[in-house]
């Protein structure tokens, strides 16, 4: 790093009123964006609100807009995002801001449930565990999406979410797609109904920002395309 002090602009306030505040943060080796935010909170302004938990890219709670792009801040090195030794940090897009860098995740998780992103089981504890064959085409599809950490980066990246408040969004629809392909899930009809409604998969315009920005390199856009295929098949009376 060229300079030993970083200029950091952090968005403060809530959805009603927000402004940028400038902070100077000393640069360290292997410093993440989350480290920078934490330094400000611990050393300059203890009233700065933000979220994090695991700091190793597992929990999905620290996502923010960094220079206008949604990122998991605990796994993003500040050196990679600095422009002229400056960085702009803001709360996630497309969600109501509670305070500073903390957004209300309720709409995101409500839509997760709305998309039937819940387990639809039929077996009881007395039944034998269903064997899962990792090599079947359906299991490969399901496996491709199950590493989602619910960080909402894709939800923040999507312009369709911004423009259409009903739209369920990439994460919820990808979850629906993994369950549809999961041999242990029996919710096919419920899932297809849920993703065929007004806010469903057909609102996706395949702009691909979800897949571009997913920190776990998942591909929600292709998962949503899978839902479009399955609902189209059902429309023609096949694959109910």
């Amino acid at each position, binding site marked *: 790093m060229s300079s030993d002090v970083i200029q950091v602009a952090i968005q403060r306030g809530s959805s009603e009123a927000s402004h940028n505040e400038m902070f100077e943060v000393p640069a360290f080796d292997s410093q993440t964006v989350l480290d920078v935010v934490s330094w400000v909170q611990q050393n300059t302004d203890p009233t700065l609100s933000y979220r994090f938990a695991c700091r190793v890219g597992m929990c999905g709670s620290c996502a923010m807009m960094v220079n206008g792009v949604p990122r998991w801040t605990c796994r993003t090195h500040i050196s990679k995002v600095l422009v002229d030794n400056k960085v702009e940090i803001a709360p996630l897009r497309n969600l109501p801001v509670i305070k500073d860098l903390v957004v209300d995740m309720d709409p995101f998780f409500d839509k997760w449930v709305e998309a039937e992103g819940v387990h639809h089981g039929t077996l009881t504890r007395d039944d034998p565990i269903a064997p899962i064959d990792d090599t079947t085409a359906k299991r490969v599809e399901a496996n491709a999406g199950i590493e989602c950490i619910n960080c909402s980066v894709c939800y923040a990246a999507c312009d*369709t979410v911004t*423009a*259409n408040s009903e739209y369920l969004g990439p994460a919820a629809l990808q979850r629906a797609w993994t369950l549809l392909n999961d041999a242990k899930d029996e919710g096919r009809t419920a899932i297809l109904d849920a993703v*065929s*409604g*007004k806010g469903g998969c*057909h*609102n996706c315009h395949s702009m691909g920002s979800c897949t571009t920005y997913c920190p776990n390199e998942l591909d929600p856009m292709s998962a949503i395309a899978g839902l479009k295929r399955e609902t*189209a098949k059902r*429309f023609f009376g096949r694959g109910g």
Partner: protein
Amino acid sequence: MLDTRLYMAQRITAILMAPLVLGHLAVMIYAVQGGLSTAEILGRTQGSILWFMFYGTFVVAVAIHGAIGVRTVIYEWAGVKGTALTIFTLVIGLGLFVLGARAVWAVTFA
């Protein structure tokens, strides 16, 4: 905003129009060689059931396709919702159909 029905209508009309667009592009490239005139256009199309079917299908498909497409854009970019959105969609669809049908009629059997 877009459910399965509208989505399928949009895609089916799109598939229907793909060969029609290719045909239309070919006619355009062919027709502009040596200049356009009313007589030249009518000489090709007048009394032709084939052209009537070709452009008639095209107009029906484009009225449906265009209405659903514009509906999406005005919902997302202009915030038009509910009944207003339905009326808007119908006006665009019917408008395109009436104007288009009139044009097809004009160059074939009028």
